[in-house]
């Protein structure tokens, strides 16, 4: 079995979720690496869109910004933000990848602030950007993040981006499009999905070298467990070769 680091594992696991013929709204970093890896392995027809307007570029290298010139390099279209978000709103974008400083059991994300006082936050982060929009509109949201109980919290200080809100049908009741929401949470220790009725986060797969207990210990809320929890398949030699040689030779992402 080849040697790999945590980032490589997470990128490979994420890339496998993207099936051939799907569409994905991506950001810089891990999402982009996962998407490029999927294109170079099992899903050459994956449609990539960037929030600033780029559609289906032939990415010559990892973009440094979701609006830089790489995001529409030899693209099939260079449009604008409204066009991309409307494409998501019409139901044409299947996946998106998001992150945040905090995530709760319903997959709600915080990328706005630490502290509860909006007028005087303890720490200010960028805010939603396009994250809330992608999470509201794309069919399936995936989060790639380290497993850490300061990150996986009982309650976000601020809900920037919707998961299933307060669970059950709260998301649809709020007026968000029907049938979409958080889909996979991929960490260094495990892969989680969301239980279909309560919409609570649930362990479905444990990464090599970790246990369910490890995951729970590094999570600030109680995780549900799938009836059958499997072991996450490690990266294959071929995945690692493509990731290291073709996707991220400068190790921008996998060297973190």
């Amino acid at each position: 079995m080849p040697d790999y680091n945590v980032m490589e594992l997470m990128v490979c696991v994420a890339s496998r979720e993207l099936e051939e013929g799907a569409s994905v709204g991506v950001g810089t970093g891990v999402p982009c690496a996962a998407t490029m890896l999927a294109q170079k392995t099992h899903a050459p027809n994956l449609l990539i869109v960037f929030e600033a307007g780029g559609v289906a570029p032939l990415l010559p290298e990892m973009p440094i910004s979701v609006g830089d010139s790489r995001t529409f390099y030899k693209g099939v279209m260079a449009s604008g933000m409204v066009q991309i978000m409307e494409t998501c709103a019409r139901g044409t974008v299947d996946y998106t990848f998001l992150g945040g400083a905090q995530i709760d059991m319903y997959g709600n994300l915080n990328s706005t602030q630490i502290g509860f006082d909006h007028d005087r936050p303890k720490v200010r982060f960028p805010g939603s950007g396009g994250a809330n929009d992608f999470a509201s509109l794309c069919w399936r949201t995936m989060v790639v993040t380290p497993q850490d109980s300061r990150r996986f919290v009982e309650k976000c200080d601020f809900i920037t981006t919707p998961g299933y809100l307060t669970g059950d049908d709260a998301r649809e009741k709020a007026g968000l499009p029907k049938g979409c929401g958080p889909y996979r949470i991929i960490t260094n220790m495990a892969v989680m999905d969301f239980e279909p009725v309560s919409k609570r986060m649930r362990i479905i797969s444990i990464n090599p070298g970790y246990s369910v207990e490890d995951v729970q210990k590094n999570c600030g809320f109680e995780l549900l467990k799938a009836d059958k929890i499997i072991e996450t398949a490690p990266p294959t030699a071929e995945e690692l070769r493509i990731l290291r040689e073709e996707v991220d030779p400068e190790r921008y992402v996998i060297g973190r």
Partner: protein
Amino acid sequence: MGAFENGIGKLFTDPDPDNARAFFRKKSREMKSKVMTVKEAVEKFVHDGEYLAIGGFGANRIPTAVCHEILRQGRKNMGFAGHTATHDFEILAAGKIFDRLDASYVVGLEARGLSPNARNYLQSGEVDVTEWSNYGLAARFRAAGMGVSFVPIRTTLGTETCKYGAGKIITCPFTGEPYLAVPALYPDVAAIHVHACDIYGNSQIKGISISDLDVARAAKRLIITTERIIHSDEIRREPNQTAIPYYLVDAVCEVPYGSYPGNMAYEYFSDEEHLREWMKVEKDPDAFKKFLDKNIYNCKSHFDYISINGGMEKMMKLRQKELLILAQEI
């Protein structure tokens, strides 16, 4: 947080299209030369207390020269649309030019990290912040461009981005479903950097337009900076290349490498080294003051700024990087 609550954030601008119409009625539609320097444009069209929007996407196709000049002229108490704002936000926060902010993406520089100084500014309590998503803010420009007071959107509902925003929950009269009505945003002034325009302001943009077509239409006054001024015949030769028509434009400023240190698609890549230096030097207030003096306050113009940061030789390298001739980091 609640699913059906209106935002409690402040609405900093008037969304009434009839008031905007009264303004636009008097705005000239004459096709006359609007060429001036950035200094003149900022003197004439950017005033203390007004509401500002900046085109582009953070460190991509931004009107850097206008941002710097606003600092040099010491504008204060402005409102700002922090829509996809990264390096532009970093500059404007360095000058503390705004005290109220519609924030969708601020403080950060995407994968590059966060601006310590901009972060401190927002944590200081000196700035009133109303929250939006990028699309929410883009839709607000769009509503203004449409000449209506709001449009319905389906994002942010149920989140605190919505609660600390200034949208209102409405019900679709056809489906009965809830929507977030976002109010039209008519900035007093906006600045947009383009690839080419004529002396009247008819502008061409290559590559993505981000939200600039709507920002241009929403803004009461519009400053265009351009990589180059081209003859109006060139505009008329390909009228479907025109992204921004002249009657929206108040000032045309020719600023080659005008998006530097940002990226300009098909022209030059971003200067990542300089952007890293910005963020690094922000950690030390004294060093940051000296850095700002050197790069902004003691510069007369964007030419000076470029010349102290490597001049034509650096621009040539950034151009080679943009065109993938130089694959490596410079």
